């Protein structure tokens, strides 16, 4: 059990997909404009990572090594399609806000990375915890970035104006601003890591 909890927490801190592994940066740049977008994207990605990890871990012994990547893609694409259809049916505004980045979860490197690096080598239970941990790490990172960007770039938090009269810096809301914020946060976390040593 202790190992499983470790698998869960490593996704949040030690192997955070955004700030340590630097995976899945493309959707991070694109959707981290507002907190609601970030949480929606994070939940969708977590669902896909979790279930693709479970399925891939349970069928790993039957997949021939040479065609494993196409097999992973089929599994991942199935869950992405489910996510997309559910989102279209029940959360149309969120679906409109995230746009093309929902189907693009298929090629999100975090999902494929976990399938290749973890689920194909570990038990179903460990893969389940790894998937939830990675998804939570991705969601938290995305929420942090988007909170900073929504505040500085639009003057709002969760869609509400925080300081009246504050004039937001438009650049932070643009992709270049996302690169700036992610870069500064990465540097900050690396600094913390060095300090901790």
């Amino acid at each position, binding site marked *: 059990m202790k190992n499983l909890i470790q698998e869960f927490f490593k996704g949040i801190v030690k192997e955070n997909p955004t700030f340590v592994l630097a995976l899945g940066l493309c959707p991070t740049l694109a959707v981290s404009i507002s907190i609601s977008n970030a949480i929606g994207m994070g939940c969708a990605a977590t669902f896909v990572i979790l279930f693709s990890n479970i399925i891939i871990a349970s069928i790993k012994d039957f997949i021939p090594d040479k065609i494993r990547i196409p097999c992973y893609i089929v599994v991942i694409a199935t869950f992405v399609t489910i996510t997309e259809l559910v989102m279209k049916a029940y959360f149309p505004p969120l679906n409109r806000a995230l746009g093309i980045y929902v189907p693009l979860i298929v090629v999100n490197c975090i999902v494929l990375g976990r399938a290749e690096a973890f689920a194909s080598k570990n038990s179903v239970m460990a893969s389940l915890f790894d998937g939830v941990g990675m998804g939570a790490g991705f969601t938290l990172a995305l929420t942090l970035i988007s909170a900073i960007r929504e505040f500085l770039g639009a003057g709002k938090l969760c869609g509400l104006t925080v300081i009246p009269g504050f004039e*937001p*810096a*438009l*650049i*932070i809301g*643009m992709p*270049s601003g996302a690169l*700036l914020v992610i870069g*500064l946060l990465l540097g900050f976390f690396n600094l913390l890591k060095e300090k901790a040593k």
Partner: protein
Amino acid sequence: MDNTLNISASPHLHARESTGRTMWLVTAALLPAGIAGVCIFGPAALKTILIAVLSAVAAEWAIQAAMKKKVTICDGSAALTGLLLAYNLPAHCPFWIPVTGSFIAIAIGKQIFGGLGQNIFNPALVGRVFLMASWPQYMTTFSRALSYDAVTQATPLALLKENKLFDHISYLGLFMGNRGGCIGEVCVAALVIGGIFLLLRKIITWHIPVSYIVTTGLFCWAFGANTPFAGDWMFHLLSGGLFLGAIFMATDYVSSPLTGRGQLIFGAGCGLLTAIIRIWGGYPEGVSYAILIMNAAAPLIDRYTKNRIYGTK
């Protein structure tokens, strides 16, 4: 007593040059343009300049103190960055524009790379471009020359971009700075005086300014009008921030190439990009973007223009 014996390879020359001395000489060379800017736009320009310089120095001090590094505000590099940033701002802008710009210039343009000498990009231009992308409404509202009031006037290049340049602006008026624009860029005469001073004191060489200005002129002459080779090149040279950029920004030691050949390529690249942005781009003026893009190319230029080591092939 200090018993250390310093041994170094010849030649044992001593020059009085130091970082601080160079920075203060460049600041002195910028003074005429600043005085001209204050004369043209009034006390608001002086206020913007002072706020920018003070907040740049304060930002440098705060960051170096927070990171427990040696505080180097006395070498004048932060003050110079603030001054250059102020010269790139309109005279009438809210006080927090120069404050934010200076902080971004020092923090993200310079200190994050490790301080003076490590920055890839010209810090003042990083600050300006950040402000330009963030608060375009304040960065493109220019006050009318010689009215000392908040009456606005578009820059000649903005008028040209919008096809509203009906009455001819005299070249002499442009040369002396009688037009809307940023504080430090309007008076070309004062910038040329500063540039000659820097050339005579051997702070800069002729390569970058000359190749920059000539390339922009040639390209605007060739493609600046509907018929080829009929562009108003003189207008393009005298309006916008070309002289400020070519003499004071592109020649920044840290972010420009080292050899003369490299500097010629660098200047020509800046000139080409400036002209392309002005003629076909979305913005009326492209000096700051051109210099920043070429800053990124400077290490590559250095790599291919290395001087041959004597005695080797």
